[in-house]
């Protein structure tokens, strides 16, 4: 790289009147960056033209391709959670509550959060690295100069796909986790799938399902936004691709946990 490397480095000096530690300044700058990025996403999402083909492709890449990983994780979590609960609850004579407990844990918390974390690891880093390398090899600039809106083509499609696909993945993962739980119970005792489902769903109400599904949209949105932001704003140089991917995973995982905390609190107020 010749001149480009130098000239594209971001200005690191702020012109603030007050003094903040450099790391804090960076932190706040990142918050503002993410927020304006998310804001821009919503604006561009609504403006035509729509990149329908690319969106479908991202649905496929982000949703369908993540399914095996999410399915395996969900299955194992359902299985182990059930296997570990049976002896404990049996001690209190409440073994019959195992399906209900597993279903509550999986649908309310473990399913959404674990799936989102896996998703953040796979998709957050994937988007971060992909957009990062496109940035580094000037592909994003190339789109820009050819009169296309790269934000619309690259960012909006990916964030939208992540927002829509994660809830779908969580729902499927929940179902698979419950199936894992069903198999685990059958290792101890024979239960029909119907009996298991009836007792599993016994204590689940809409006021459980609605916040649990709502938060997965927010998880998907935040993972998409962070991944795209990090990739889209990667500085030049190959190492920045790795940094973008890494930062995307770290921040989006943290966001998932934070959103989860806020949403649990919020839903306990609303419902």
């Amino acid at each position, binding site marked *: 790289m*010749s*001149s480009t490397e*130098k000239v594209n480095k971001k200005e690191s000096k702020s012109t603030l009147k007050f003094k903040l530690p450099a790391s804090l300044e960076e932190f706040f700058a990142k918050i503002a960056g993410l927020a304006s990025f998310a804001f821009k996403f919503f604006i561009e999402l609504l403006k035509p033209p729509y990149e329908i083909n690319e969106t479908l492709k991202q649905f496929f890449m982000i949703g369908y391709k993540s399914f095996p990983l999410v399915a395996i994780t969900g299955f194992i979590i359902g299985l182990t959670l059930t296997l570990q609960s049976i002896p404990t609850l049996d001690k209190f004579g409440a073994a019959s509550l195992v399906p209900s407990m597993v279903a509550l844990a999986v649908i309310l918390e473990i399913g959404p959060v674990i799936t989102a974390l896996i998703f953040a690891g796979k998709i957050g880093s994937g988007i971060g690295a992909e957009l990062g390398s496109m940035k580094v090899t000037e*592909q994003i600039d190339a789109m820009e100069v*050819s009169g296309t*809106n790269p934000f619309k083509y690259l960012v909006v499609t990916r964030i939208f796909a992540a927002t829509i696909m994660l809830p779908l993945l969580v729902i499927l993962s929940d179902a698979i986790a419950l199936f894992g739980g069903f198999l685990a119970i059958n290792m101890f005792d024979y239960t029909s799938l119907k009996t298991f489902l009836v007792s599993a769903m016994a204590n689940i109400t809409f006021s459980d399902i609605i916040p649990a599904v709502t938060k997965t949209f927010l998880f998907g949105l935040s993972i998409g936004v962070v991944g795209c932001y990090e990739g889209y704003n990667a500085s030049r140089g190959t190492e920045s691709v790795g940094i973008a991917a890494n930062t995307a995973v770290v921040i989006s995982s943290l966001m998932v946990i934070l959103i989860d905390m806020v949403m649990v609190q919020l839903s306990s107020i609303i419902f």
Partner: protein
Amino acid sequence: MGDLKNEDEILRISKLKKAFGSNTVLSDVDLNVKKGETVVILGRSGTGKSVILKCIIGLIFPDSGSIEIFGEDFLNIKQDEKSKLRIRIGFLFQAGALYDSMTVRQNLEFPIIRQPDYKKSDLSGKVEEMLENVGLAEAIDKMPSELSGGMQKRIGLARTLMLEPEIILYDEPTTGLDPVTSNEISHLILDMQKKLNVTSLIVTHDMQCAKLVSNRIVVLKEGKFTAEGTFEELEKSEDEFVNGFFKFE
């Protein structure tokens, strides 16, 4: 540069300034380019030659100065106006900047099908024609990763030509290529100019290329153009800095 002030000027840059932090890259750049002209910008690495090109296309916003393209004040127009102007400007990136998730055909189609007034008929045979122009018709269904650096640049040029720009900005078109391929690319640029009568602005260190394609050469030093002339004029220059570029001729 008084003699250049005529109606054919499609690009006027004046008093362009750009600094990155404390590092002033461009201090006072003035450049006018006439229609059909090929201007080569010479300068040492890291002195901001590419920055000029990126300011023209709008990838970098200058601190001050003005850029006028096709008679429009490029720095003070709306985004959609800017997009329309950009279509008339081609930009060839250093490494070609091919979209590596798409085939060569998709790469070439990409800018066309996203134009607001795109019609399917615009596309028929055009991809093949452009690939023919750069001599890579057989690569149409290959992925960019399967192509060599020189081929990627040629495909990049073909993609740039798809929108039939009136002015093409070349960012170091021959850098990193072997002399034979460099020569091929230089000839390709020349061919395109003759064939399509496009205006060109080329940033390069490759004197072979400069000699072959340039009508005029400007030399960038410390953020200003310090010398200007045809290849032959500058070759005879007494200036030590300018001479440095021609030493190894």
